[in-house]
């Protein structure tokens, strides 16, 4: 080997090593981009959170619209129109967030309560039937007794949907036939009398009470 070719070989090896060293940076690994995904760790911030805590007293864009929903504890106002849609939303949210402790019927026998959590009071007791709407709103938002606040999990509108549904649950055990619209009352009467007739023919003395 001549001196020139030896020199060339050495230069090529050196260049090869030099460029190979850059591969790590040259390779655009698109599957692992240097960006923050939700809750991904960060080595930039001291607490390793890429998701930054909000500055105190921050008002999120659009959340001023919720102002009307903040009903004080001692008020019985209900800031939303109550309709079937709100009640159904309330039922849905109640099942997600409340039933673990309060139970499907709201009498405090949820699965988590059965497993040792403090039994919450029944929604059907007199004290809570008389309680103001604002009282419920405050308890969902800030918690009460062993129950932590749910402001982080349930947005204000949904809290009111839940309150509407709790009111419906309370009503369900105290509704009077006289409260029904005439049409429904008649239907109920008809069903009642036909039920009684059927029971009569079946000779079932308990049948008439339905």
């Amino acid at each position, binding site marked *: 080997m001549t001196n020139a070719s030896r020199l060339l070989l050495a230069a090529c090896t050196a260049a090869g090593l030099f460029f190979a060293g850059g591969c790590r940076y040259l390779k655009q690994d698109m*599957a692992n*981009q240097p960006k923050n995904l939700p809750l991904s760790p960060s080595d930039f911030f001291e607490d390793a959170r890429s998701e930054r805590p909000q500055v105190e007293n921050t008002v999120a864009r659009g959340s001023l619209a919720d102002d009307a929903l903040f009903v004080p504890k001692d008020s019985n106002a209900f800031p939303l129109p109550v309709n079937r849609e709100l009640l159904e939303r309330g039922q849905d949210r109640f099942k997600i967030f409340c039933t673990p402790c309060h139970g499907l019927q709201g009498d405090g026998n949820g699965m988590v309560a059965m497993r*040792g959590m403090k039994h919450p009071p029944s929604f059907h007791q007199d004290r809570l039937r008389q309680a103001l709407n604002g009282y419920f709103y405050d308890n969902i938002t800030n918690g009460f007794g062993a129950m*932590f606040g749910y402001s982080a999990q349930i947005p204000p509108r949904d809290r009111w949907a839940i309150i509407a549904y709790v009111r419906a649950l309370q009503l369900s055990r105290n509704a009077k036939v006289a409260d029904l619209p005439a049409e429904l009352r008649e239907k109920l009467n008809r069903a009642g009398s036909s039920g009684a007739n059927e029971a009569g023919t079946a000779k079932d003395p308990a049948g008439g009470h339905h």
Partner: protein
Amino acid sequence: MAQIFHRSTNFISRFSVFSFIFMMGFAVLAVLAAARSPYLTRQNITRQQPIQFSHKHHVGDDGIDCRYCHTSVETSAFAGIPPTKTCMNCHSVLFSNAGYLEPIRESYRTDKSIEWVKIHRLADFVYFNHSIHVNKGVGCSTCHGRVDEMPLVFQANTLLMQWCVECHRNPAPNLRPMDKVYAMDWTPTPDQEELGKKFMKERNIRTTAELTSCSTCHR
């Protein structure tokens, strides 16, 4: 003068030229198989978490809805990992002295995040959105499997693009009635074919061409 090559060299040289084609084929197959193996897709592999959280217990035994903890699944791309406070909703009372829950209490006391290990990892160039899927009626267990039966969560599917596209080509078999989206035990009923078509129309689900276009998932 002696022969340089032994007689067997004739056979070896022919055989190696012939087998080279097969070897290349096997090499390609090996690469393809490796990419689909649990080693690379992480399918069916459980990982050690900082706390032995059991979805089987919380979902299967206690019947807690997915959305109690994963609150943003209906409204955002990210389903949400609950803050430590959500754990404390119950565990401030339940098992409040248990040693294995100490990392939760410590996190709550010190305001330091619990570093859960991510199980379902997509490549950073995939823009998956939870809310669009659940709001159009694709249920949790369709992708995540029976989480209510997993003491430690593992990835039930490959999460390969091939697997995503299978459903994007024809979503109908995976569309559920809206009240069954969060049900872990949903299985298609015999009339799923009809229902699927109906849901496609009702929920304005896009055409196959739109659902399989690159920019639907990659941006």
